[in-house]
């Protein structure tokens, strides 16, 4: 898995070093951007939506029943159990982000604190995405492809595949008002920008706004789905 990711990232870095030369953008800055963006999205499980797969399996196979019988919140229980299985991935993601920091000329303590806050927000947004897509299994047991559709959107519009700044100004402004950039673009760009600018502020505020709206909504979708849940056995 580690080798797999390393080869994939090697390809990405090589591609962006070519683009950096053509676009007259600093290669170091682009490499740093992608290392941090990929590190954060891996850390928070934004693009692969692996927690969605866990939920999908639990619902499809009926093993969710056992968790429903316990006096605990099944979503939180499943999420924390899932986090426990991600040791290697989390370590790898942190390593990527730290390598990304090494490509930066410098950064301040304030930047790093803001980065940590943005990673925390990214965790919550990713959790929401995972819960929303995973809950769709209650309506369609074969939700793998829906998960793929969501992954493709997240990869392109969150800044994992391409920095948001590469889009036209209009599209960039629209994207900054969505929760998507918070899982990759925002943490990465915070580390690259010494001053809090309008883009960072917009993305920060819109992320907090969307968390306020989507977090209760995702639990509402989960509860609505639970009403449809049928399983054989316990």
């Amino acid at each position: 898995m580690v080798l797999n990711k390393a080869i994939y990232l090697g390809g990405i870095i090589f591609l962006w070093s070519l683009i950096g030369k053509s676009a007259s953008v600093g290669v170091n800055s682009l490499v740093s951007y992608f290392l941090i963006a990929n590190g954060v999205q891996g850390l928070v499980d934004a693009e692969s939506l692996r927690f969605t797969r866990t939920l999908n399996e639990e619902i499809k196979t009926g093993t969710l029943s056992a968790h429903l019988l316990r006096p605990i919140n099944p979503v939180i229980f499943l999420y924390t159990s899932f986090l426990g299985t991600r040791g290697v991935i989390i370590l790898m993601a942190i390593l990527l982000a730290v390598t990304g920091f090494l490509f930066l000329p410098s950064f301040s303590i304030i930047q790093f604190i803001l980065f940590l806050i943005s990673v925390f927000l990214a965790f919550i947004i990713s959790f929401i995405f995972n819960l929303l897509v995973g809950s769709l299994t209650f309506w369609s047991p074969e939700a793998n492809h829906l998960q793929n559709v969501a992954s493709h959107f997240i990869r392109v519009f969150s800044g994992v595949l391409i920095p948001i700044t590469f889009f036209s100004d209009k599209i960039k402004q629209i994207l900054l008002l969505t929760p998507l950039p918070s899982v990759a673009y925002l943490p990465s760009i915070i580390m690259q920008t010494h001053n809090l600018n309008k883009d960072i502020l917009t993305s920060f505020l819109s992320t907090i706004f969307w968390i306020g709206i989507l977090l209760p909504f995702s639990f509402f979708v989960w509860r609505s789905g639970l009403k449809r849940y049928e399983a054989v056995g316990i």
Partner: protein
Amino acid sequence: MKQSVFEPIKIRLEILKANTLFSLKESLAYSLNNWGGLASTITYMLTYLVFLSALYGRVETIGGYRYSEALLFTLMVQLNFYLIWVWSMTNLEKLGYDIKTGKLDLILSKPLPSLWYVTFQKINLFTLIVEMWPATLPLLYLLFKHLDFSVTPLGLFYGALTLFLGQIATHCFQFLFTLLTFWTGESKGLTGISYQIAFFGSDAIPLEAFPKPVIFLGITAIPFLTHTALTTSYILGRTTSPFYLILALASTTIFLFIKIKAWNFALKHYASASS
């Protein structure tokens, strides 16, 4: 009665036909899953085209390729990915699973050419017809809209040959990785790594962007450049010398030879999981 010399070929063609028909029936049985697959591939293509247009909104060329040429490159990526998925990757995943679970016993006990059978056990034409083409239509539309290069018959011929050779070489390369399952017992990681290597940078990095020694390596020992990058380069007329084509032919032949030898060697070390 003496067996005709054409009998082995006839048996192999029968296996191909039977496996293809069975795979098609299997695919058609899960219609909802197929619609989901279609939605997923179309979304992938649309988001990739957004990525490409955003990229070329900022730069004129990448590795020397203009937007229209990058679209052709993407078409080759699509074609290669689906082809390798339809006839090779699916079978390699299945082979890995069969070795792990001991189901390979059943195949080996059949009076069939086993290597041929495991190579073409499943050929999912449904994916090629229903998933690939609808997803490729927006790409084709953009390609024809921005077409500003010409293609010569010789370039197209060389390109078609390298695509064919690249598919076989890539398959053999990945097959060798899968054979390690005979010793490791698990194939998922091996299939993943072999895919990442065989398609390294294939999404968007043209042949011309690589240094000469890497090109040589990418056409011979680790054939990650033959299937897409070299094919596109020949079609666009950026590479005209048949040298790389001959190199690809030689390396594919060697890969095929190694594949057969490695299969026979691995079989001798096969300890069935079921018996």
